[in-house]
């Protein structure tokens, strides 16, 4: 069977939990701005999603690698709420000393603002982005009973088609509503709470299509329970090489979930450099590489500046698409 935990790992976990509790309760201001001494105690990596989801798993994978290089524990703190806006706003308000990091989802910056009020939207300029991490692709899947095997089956169906999304203001919703408009197909948008229930609805043919993240859909695709019609990434996904992209099929709707690590704005450059070096070290490790592969994540280990430019470009593109096709992501058509 698999490994048994050594006493040391158990103790390590227990002490990490204790440290986490202590830092969470105590005053986290840290006081010292002497960045030569960085890191000064544990570095909290906040995740705006619940434990167990893909964002959380990514955070845990990089925290494990980075804590080794940095020589300080990097506990993952889950603070779910408002798609991650809650955690983002909290971390943005913390001292910019590098002791508090956040794992950002691109959709929170690029897509969610299209569906929520301005004061709920998160601005990437409130952060110093340290490093881009990976790309998690969206795949459009069709239920068995729908009979759809390719995207042309959908566009040629000549009837109203129901499609499940993973919620209002998500990449899943944006990708499908834009696709349907561009293909001039009539569809009903049925929002679910997350990827799992949307996929389950496709399995039970309660909706004919849904767009979910590849990691969620893959077991069902492999089992032949749902048919992958297309991926929304700019290039084909290496884990699903036979499925065409939306671009190849003639639709201009590049949507994927990107993730990056960021610190509050104004973090000293040498602290940022130290963090970046630690993350680069993690990216090189076999453990992290196989983690990405296992979770069907495509590495996108770009610099912080590139992340900001790309995410802003996507945000502008989505805004233009939504306006062009007069799509309202919040269903009040």
């Amino acid at each position, binding site marked *: *069977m*698999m*490994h*048994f*935990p050594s006493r040391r*790992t*158990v103790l390590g*976990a*227990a002490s990490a*939990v204790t440290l986490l509790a202590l830092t*969470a309760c105590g005053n986290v201001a840290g006081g010292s701005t002497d960045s030569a001494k960085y890191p000064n105690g544990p570095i909290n990596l906040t995740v705006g999603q*619940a*434990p*167990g*989801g893909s964002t*959380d*798993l990514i955070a*845990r994978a990089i925290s494990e690698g980075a804590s080794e290089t940095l020589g300080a524990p990097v506990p993952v*703190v*889950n*603070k*779910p*709420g*408002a798609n991650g*806006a*809650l955690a983002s*706003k909290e971390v943005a308000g913390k001292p910019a000393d590098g002791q508090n990091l956040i794992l950002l989802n691109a959709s929170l910056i690029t897509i969610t603002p299209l*569906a*929520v*009020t301005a*004061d*709920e939207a998160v601005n990437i300029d409130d952060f110093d982005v340290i490093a881009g991490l990976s790309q998690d692709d969206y795949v459009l899947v069709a239920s068995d009973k729908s009979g759809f095997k390719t995207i042309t089956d959908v566009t040629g169906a000549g009837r*109203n088609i*129901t499609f499940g999304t993973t*919620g*209002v*203001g998500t990449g899943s919703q944006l990708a499908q509503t834009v696709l349907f408009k561009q293909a001039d197909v009539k569809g*009903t*948008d*049925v*929002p*679910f*709470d997350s990827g*799992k*229930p949307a996929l*389950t*609805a496709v*399995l*039970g043919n*309660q909706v004919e299509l849904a767009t979910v993240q590849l990691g969620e859909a893959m*077991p*069902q695709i*492999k*089992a032949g*329970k749902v048919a992958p019609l297309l991926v929304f990434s700019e290039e084909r996904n290496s884990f699903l090489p036979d499925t065409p992209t939306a671009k190849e099929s003639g639709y201009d709707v590049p949507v994927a979930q990107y993730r990056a690590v960021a610190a509050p704005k104004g973090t000293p450059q040498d602290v940022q450099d130290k963090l970046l070096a630690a993350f680069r070290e993690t990216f090189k490790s076999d453990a992290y590489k196989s983690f990405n592969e*296992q979770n069907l994540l495509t590495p996108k280990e770009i610099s912080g500046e590139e992340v900001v430019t790309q995410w802003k470009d996507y945000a502008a593109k989505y805004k233009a698409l939504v306006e062009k096709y007069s799509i309202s*992501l*919040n*269903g*009040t058509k």
Partner: protein
Amino acid sequence: MDFLNPVINGFAVVLEPTNLLYCLIGVVIGMLIGVLPGLGPAATIAILLPLTYNVEPVTAIIMLAGIFYGAQYGGTITSVLLKLPGEASSVVTVFDGYQMARQGKAGTALGLASIGSFVGGTAAIIGLTFLAPIVASFALDFGPAEYSALALLGILLVATISSGSKTKALIAAALGLLLATVGRDIFTGESRFTFGSLELADGIDFVPIAMGVFGLGEILYNLEERHRAAKAPSKVTNVWPSRQDLKQASGSIGRGSVLGFFLGILPGGGATIASMASYAMEKKRAKQPERFGKGAPEGVAGPETANNAAATSSFIPLLTLGIPANATMALMFGALLIQGVTPGPQLVEENPELFWGVVNSMYIGNILLLIMSLPLVGLFVKILRVRAAILAPVTALITLLGAYTINNSMFDVTLVVVFGVIGYLMKKFGFEPGPLVLAFVLGSLLESSLRRSLLVFGGDPAGFFSRPISATLLIVFVLVAVLPGIRALLARRKASDSGAPAPEYIKEKENV
């Protein structure tokens, strides 16, 4: 008999010393937190999640599962002795269990509950063993329409099972429904009742509400009660029920096993709904329903059997489909994902030692619980004899700490305090918190499923009747709704020509 091979291999997995030890730890923690009010299995599992990162997946799930079904056992003890349900799923046990204790039959009530729990749990495990591999196709037919019908039925049951005033139960349920609307509308992204607070954007979490009204509210209420009512629990003697009690309860144990098993499988169902449905069923079936609430053994045996059966069978949708049926299963789901195991249709084939290891650990766990609960009742009662002045602040602290740990959020702690005060005031003025919490859970399910189904049906409500399962559920709903009327009518007729036989239609309902 090839299909039995993995089952047998599963036993080999459980009997590994590490797994046995974690199973024992799990059920003991489960019983303890079940005994202590305010801290439920969901919160405990959430708190203990970080500790499972470094053990094997199967070991972690064995322990967490042990906490879950162990709590169903333990929750009964406080329900019976202190009128203080340790778990939401033991709320209905209070009605008759506490009355039995007041009549000096506390031991009998606990004995019946233990035996019922064991039978229910074991029946569900046997069902799980045979049903799990084939259940996938059936459960997938549960779409938005079916969830809507199920939620409607659930809310109706909430109204019919309440012990006190029906009007007050309905008011509490209405408050629950109202609370369920708080947060971002998942269909339009519009914020409802959030008052601009991002903390409320996702709505109010179920856990702080449950912790507040059940946990903190109870603690506060009990502190006030201390001087007036002698809170020292009744002496527990003779936990082996008499032959007559057993005979009286055996029917309800059988029915509870079946009902609990099926309600546990259904997504959105679970131990709490199963115990309430079983109570309602026993009350409706009884020849003298007026005995209920005054110490009827069936009112303890039925729900306690059903909640254990449901606790076990709720693993079926999780392990076979990757669909968590309730909040606790959602936590199990998270635990598995953290371990790198994705529950789903492939789990049984790809990870047979995990699937059967966990399933078979429940046999072992149930035996451990039966061994512990009957003779050790006295010991658990001693825990409860710890003075309220010590126990109350400790429990309150654990509750608040637990509330904080789940989302690392002080806001959740504030919510627990607010709902603790609400729960306290409700108790003080004779409102049961049960309907509030259940209506809250079912309210959001009902709203989202209903709106989702109408989207799928193109706005045509007749669509609900075009699907066999939702149509059946809605017919049951109508039956349950008009039943009290029919009963009253029959009772009046019975009064005029005495000795009419038990009505037939209830038996039909059971087959649904």
